[in-house]
């Protein structure tokens, strides 16, 4: 849990839209393997468009290397668009499930902690709890540190997903060009 998921000079966050076909994930990861790029996290999922998946990749790279990673991704036939959002205003989130050892006497204390982190209980068992938390990596690390003394039995994390702030992102726009969005003005 020591890895820093945050965009820094050492990591870059890419968004890629790819064709939703068998083997595409393998092609992308094979590229990273072959060129020796180290993946910090990788998330793939569907989008609002049929046949199009979206990947968020956090990769160890300086700015120079990042340009080549982007170019290499862009070259792949199944990759529809790529955007390096590291230096763009963006929101990024991880979702984590943590199973904590928690007898009835410890539950109130854990509940209080979770409130601070805006985490939720999603399963209660006589001896354990499953906590769900969404957020940035340092928030997650903070919660993990606080829960560790109670005894963490299992933990699973999605990997970062990210989106640029404001209007439609470059990568999204390349896949499905849309007229400029009209700003929605609150009534």
């Amino acid at each position: 849990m020591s890895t820093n998921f945050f965009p820094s000079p050492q990591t870059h966050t890419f968004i890629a839209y790819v064709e939703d076909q068998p083997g595409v994930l393998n092609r992308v990861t094979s590229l990273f393997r072959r060129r020796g790029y180290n993946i910090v996290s990788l998330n793939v999922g569907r989008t609002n468009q049929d046949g199009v998946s979206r990947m968020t990749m956090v990769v160890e790279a300086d700015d120079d290397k990042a340009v080549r990673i982007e170019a290499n991704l862009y070259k792949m036939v199944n990759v529809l668009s790529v955007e390096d959002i590291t230096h763009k205003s963006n929101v990024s989130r991880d979702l984590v499930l943590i199973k904590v050892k928690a007898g009835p006497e410890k539950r109130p204390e854990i509940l209080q902690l979770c409130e601070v982190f805006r985490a939720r209980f999603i399963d209660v068992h006589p001896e354990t709890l499953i906590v769900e938390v969404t957020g940035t990596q340092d928030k997650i690390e903070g919660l993990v540190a606080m829960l560790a003394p109670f005894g963490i039995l299992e933990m699973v994390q999605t990997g970062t997903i990210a989106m640029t702030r404001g209007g439609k992102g470059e990568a999204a726009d390349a896949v499905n060009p849309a007229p400029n969005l009209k700003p929605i003005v609150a009534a």
Partner: protein
Amino acid sequence: MVAPLHSITEPQPTSTGPKTLTGSQVIWEALVNEGVETVFGYPGGAIMPAYDALTDYPHLRHILVRHEQGAAHMADGFSRASGKVGVCIATSGPGATNLVTGIANAMMDSIPMVAITGQVGSHLIGSDAFQEVDITGITLPITKHNFLVTKAADIGPTIRKAFYIAASGRPGPVLVDITKDAQQATTEYRYDGSPVRMPGYRPEKHPLPSDIARAVDMIKAAKRPIVFAGHGIIKANATAALLEFVQKTGIPVAQTLLGLGGFPATHERSLGMMGMHGEAWVNKAIQEADLIIALGMRFDDRVTGNLKTYALDAKKIHVELDPAEINKNVKVDLPLLGDVREILRLINPHVDGVDVKEWVAQIEHSKGDSAVREITNLPDNGKLFAAHVIHDLWRYTNGKALVVTDVGQHQMWEAQYYKHDHPRKLLTSGGAGTMGFALPAAMGARFACPDDQIWVIAGDGGFQMTACELATCAQEGIKVNIAIINNGYLGMVRQWQQFFYGGRYVATPIKSPDFVKLAEAHGLKGLRVTQRSEVKAAVEAAQASPDTCIVDFRVEQEDSVYPMVPAGADLDNMIRRPKPVSPVSDEHNPIFEIGKDK
């Protein structure tokens, strides 16, 4: 004598109405629609339905190879010589894996090629069925793209896409793996000749006008500019544009191995090859240059030597089609993305008034004693040096042969001594350095250039890797001339052992069959040459032979390729040719001068 060739004279249809065909027929139909006339392959279980349908396409010539690697190299050689997409075909499993070396070779040198493989029935995929291998998985990193086709209806459109991907942008090999059931099923096939559209594939690149202007400014401001002409010049058919650029500016041109022929070697501004086995004064010029104009090349480690000390005084303009090559090895000041011919045409009108006379004189001066060290300038001392053989071959073929080299010492001697004045007349395995490339590649080139005089130049080691294709030459009536530079060693490895491994010749002495008898065993012609005085007659006899002819040149055994930049050393830190002790020396001169060539 040229092998009989079928020719398809009717124009290619732009589209055809729907026909009901088997998947197997669609394979051939689609190839014919892409303009294919010759395929190189080897049948087997999973591709048998396709082969069975070949009888319906008598105009397509199929060359039966002896090993699938040969098929891949033939398709590659055809492609290099013609600029078109070469096609090879193999069955599943070992047939497909035997293509792998040839595909990787094509990938490294950006050769457009389509490889078609049979695959086990789609219901058997993943079951470790007989002759099943995951060839799309295996070739993922060595193809530009690959496809697994499991439905007959997908075969036609996929082959069309494969050709488009292979030939467009930075070219490369594409593999299409087709299951047996897809070949057997029936489908409606309609050829659509309209441009292929794939949403994720946009190979076109164009430079910004402002960057062109910046390049012009940099060229005009330079005092010591040098052009690097790479493989991209040949691929983009940019020779004429480059000639115009050099005629206007006078800027000297150094070439990469794969760039040879892209700029005339006998042009007064040609510096010849750069890098590990480039002339010392060429590499010195690169280290002294204040501007490098790199055209369609990728700063390979064999070109740059030690990157930390490489061309530190030079600003660098990098004209390149593939954005992933920019700043990969060498940090450049101005990348120009796009087709090198188009970019030269944009630059050419604006580069009047460049004056590099002083710089050219400086380069000329630094040639120094190079000519004295030049082996071809030495009188005949009765010994047969590989350099002599290749130099003489150049003279006796009037520099007009299409030469296909294998990999090793002879390849470097060819690059140094056979002066290519035209593009696509030197085919060689550059990036991958695949021994065994020459003979099959030359056979493929024969179908691209039916009237050329084709010479294979191979070492005794590499030749034996694909020598089985001699049988293919005999069966198919393919005529090439083969010069085996036979020194009884894996020469380049021996040279490295001599220079860098204390002279311990481990696993490099190699015994060969009697190549003359080997040729004769195939019903072909064989000759042996041991004296320089015999070279001319042998070259002429080989040319006159209607059949493929092997000439076994028994050359000096422990000759080395000079000059040489040791791997990873500074570019101007060269091992130079030993100076002859006397003009006619019988002794091999053991002195190497290692160190900066000041």
